[in-house]
């Protein structure tokens, strides 16, 4: 019994090391949080006042009333949710097709998908910019969402996942009189839910944190996503003035993502551990 217990207990040195690491990670977050509850005037005098009362909700109030942050938040939600939904739909369909259907050039196309994994965004962003300018898609939701739908990893991931589902199930469903659509929708797709969750969470986070493309594509403040909007706000306020407000914006911006993390904790950990498939 004692062996079992001691196996679960870390040596003291390791515990201390981990605590130190955690402290280093958490300190800036706590600092941000504290600053966000201080009045800007007080912080201008000395930011060390953040350690003592009085605290105020003033900064959060200004976000909700006077600023564009709510708008940016809405934009981010629309773009991220739109991208996630689009990626899940497209990758599921493509994954099913690559895993189960027999069509001309299937292997060649799949190789193209894999090659897509190797193309960095930097290589395509200029032509993409020109292309979107040509189509007049800049500074619009479709303009912000469409590039995110190109998801070679998602296609690859879903293909592998569909491939891992035994073909027996397809055959049983065929004998059960299922149409191809029923087979996909009622039998196979529900079995990919763990993969959908993993891919969905990562797509959402990636889209939420994306900075470069919205910076290029969104040109007016009412189309900014949070990342672009907050960065522009930071430029407007030199660190000395409005520090509390800036920090409140940062906290506010992370709330949705925090919620995603909390809800999908299991999937994220599983995906990180590389056990998402199977």
């Amino acid at each position, binding site marked *: 019994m004692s062996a079992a217990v001691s196996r679960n207990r870390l040596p003291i040195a390791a515990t201390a090391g981990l605590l130190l690491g955690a402290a280093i990670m958490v300190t800036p977050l706590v600092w941000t949080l504290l600053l966000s509850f201080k009045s800007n005037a007080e912080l201008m005098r000395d930011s060390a006042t953040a350690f003592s009362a009085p605290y105020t909700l003033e900064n959060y109030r200004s976000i909700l009333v006077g600023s564009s942050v709510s708008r940016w938040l809405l934009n981010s939600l629309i773009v991220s949710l739109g991208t996630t939904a689009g990626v899940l739909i497209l990758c599921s369909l493509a994954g099913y097709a690559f895993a189960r259907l027999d069509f001309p050039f299937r292997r060649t196309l799949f190789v193209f998908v894999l090659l897509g994994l190797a193309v960095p965004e930097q290589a395509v962003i200029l032509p993409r910019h020109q292309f979107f300018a040509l189509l007049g898609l800049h500074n619009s939701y479709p303009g912000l969402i469409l590039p995110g739908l190109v998801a070679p990893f998602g296609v690859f991931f879903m293909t592998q996942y569909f491939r891992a589902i035994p073909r*027996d*199930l397809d055959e*049983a*469903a*065929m*004998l*059960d*009189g299922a149409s191809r659509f*029923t087979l996909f929708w009622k039998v196979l797709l529900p*079995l990919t839910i763990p993969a959908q969750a993993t891919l969905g969470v990562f797509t959402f986070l990636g889209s939420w944190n994306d900075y470069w493309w919205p910076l290029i594509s969104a040109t007016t403040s009412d189309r900014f996503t949070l990342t672009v909007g907050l960065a522009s706000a930071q430029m407007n306020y030199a660190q000395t003035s409005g520090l509390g407000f800036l920090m409140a914006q940062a906290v506010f911006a992370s709330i949705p993502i925090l919620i995603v993390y909390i809800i999908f904790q299991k999937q994220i950990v599983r995906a990180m551990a590389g056990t998402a498939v199977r």
Partner: protein
Amino acid sequence: MLSLELDRIRKAYGDTLVLDDVSLGMDAREFIAFLGPSGSGKSTLLRIIAGLETADSGEVRLDGQRIDHLHPGDRNVAMVFQHYALYPHMTVRENMAFGLRNARVPKGEIDERIAQAAKVLEIEDQLDKKPGQMSGGQRQRVAIGRAIVKQPRLFLLDEPLSNLDAALRTRTRVELAQLRQRVDAGVIMVTHDQAEAMTLADRIVIMNDRRIQQIGAPMEIYTRPANAFVAGFVGSPAMTLVKAALEPGEGPFARVRLGDGAQVETRVSRAGLPVDGPLRLGLRPESVRPAAAGTGTTEAEVLLVERLGDRTLVYARLANGEEVTAQDEGNSRIRMGDRIGLAVDGKAAHLFDADGTGHHAEAAA
């Protein structure tokens, strides 16, 4: 009345011919077992009937209608898969209802059929479980239940018992036999287990080397194997086959000389045999009895003694090196290395000619 008919089915995967002109007629409500070694095309044939594979040529008819161009779901057949293939995300009830919903069976009737099947299979209290929460034996029942509720004309079972442990397998075998009495449909079961085939089937189809080797009732296949392959494949331990040559003579029955010079008087009609050319004498272990050395038909040295309790199997070597399996009573005193005599019961002997065709004793008088 014929229900299923297979007419000259051919199937190749690439250059490999898997089924070569396979034909078969099956009566309604008949239970047929496809028995054969692994890779003999049993599953392929079953899948062609189900519509999961397409034959390169040949016809499949069910109750007189051609079904080979129909979608699997429209063929009025149900299949039980070797690995069950239950839908993991659905409850047992949903698994059974899925096919019926696709066929637009009214809700009330679906519930009724499921309730009835669940009762027969004794899984009434499992209906809301998911397959992942059940044991192998229970899943097997659900897979059978899913087939039963469809009320098909034909059940197709691919090695349904091979994933169960020995005890459960015997029990399920009995249950399959009982179940079979209740359903008004034919059953085809693929198996490589001859005990399973012998117990359950009305007729056994022996498959090997792309073809049907023999179709017959279990005892017919055991007592009158059509060829040397069937003779060696059915029966455990296998029939002994030793070289033999026809002795010239006048009587109605063949008399043969073995490789070691011993002679055996069979009841196989001399008329049907090739005049010369090599023969093989087929002897079931129960028709070869150990005897005291110097008595009996021939002499042999004991290689191995296998004591099974109720009987003892004696593996012995003839003077010319060929091996023969004999059967002795349970408390046999024979030991390895003994020199013994072998008393061959010629009345039960079989002869196989050069191309393997079997010749059997005239029906016992």
